[in-house]
């Protein structure tokens, strides 16, 4: 399934809803969108992975890149994910210790993530 990207605003948070497959072919589009959002002034970004059905190391690299960029800019970055296969990927790579991970968008935006 192709990558889908949709942006909405929840309070001071910019929520990027990602769907489909994030891999070595599609990850550059995700990187581009995140950079556009940050360049446009977004400082509290939440990426909702709820409709992602495949995520590989390239996609994870893009997410880490966005996290670092926002930290440098005194911003915040959080992920929404409640799918066990994806959560397992975060655990195996130790990235669950790097990203704030929430099970819902409400939790991610309400927690001041």
């Amino acid at each position: 399934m192709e990558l889908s990207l949709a942006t909405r605003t929840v309070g001071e948070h910019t929520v990027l809803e990602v769907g489909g497959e994030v891999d070595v072919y599609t990850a550059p589009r995700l990187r581009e969108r995140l950079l556009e959002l940050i360049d446009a002034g977004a400082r509290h970004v939440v990426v909702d992975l709820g409709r992602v059905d495949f995520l590989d190391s390239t996609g994870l690299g893009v997410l880490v890149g966005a996290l670092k960029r926002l930290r440098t800019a005194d911003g915040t970055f959080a992920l929404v994910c409640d799918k066990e296969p994806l959560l397992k990927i975060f655990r195996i790579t130790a990235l669950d210790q790097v990203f704030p991970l929430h099970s819902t968008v409400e939790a991610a935006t309400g927690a001041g993530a």
Partner: protein
Amino acid sequence: MATVRLSFSPAPVHVRTARLVGVAVARRAGVREDLLDEVRLAIGEACTRAVALHRQYGLADPVLVEMSDAGVYAVRVVDRAPIEAGIGLAALDADQLANESLNEDDLTTGVGFALLAGFVEDLQVRPVEDGIGTEVRMVWPVNR
């Protein structure tokens, strides 16, 4: 003897095709349904790694994927990059992952290896027997 052999030019767009074929052959070979997500991810990571190496070294040679189901489901992903580039990968820990100075390519490589090592119990990365390159060999049990 390989039952299915696929070779593709080293472009990211073809990695998805390799994943789809790899999972289809795994299902046909009798790999348990609950392992298929891991098979898909591991084949994708091995092919992504091979494509990245070919692009890094400017190699137009195809990446080879061989799938065989003689007793187990064995997948070989073969690249043609210099051996020193392919061997000696290491997984990164959480501190290294969060390190500001680590660039995205190195991070992706480390994460990719962590996924391979984490999802494939029977994993070997070794030089190919013929010519230049490395092969990533992954084996999963089949129910027969």
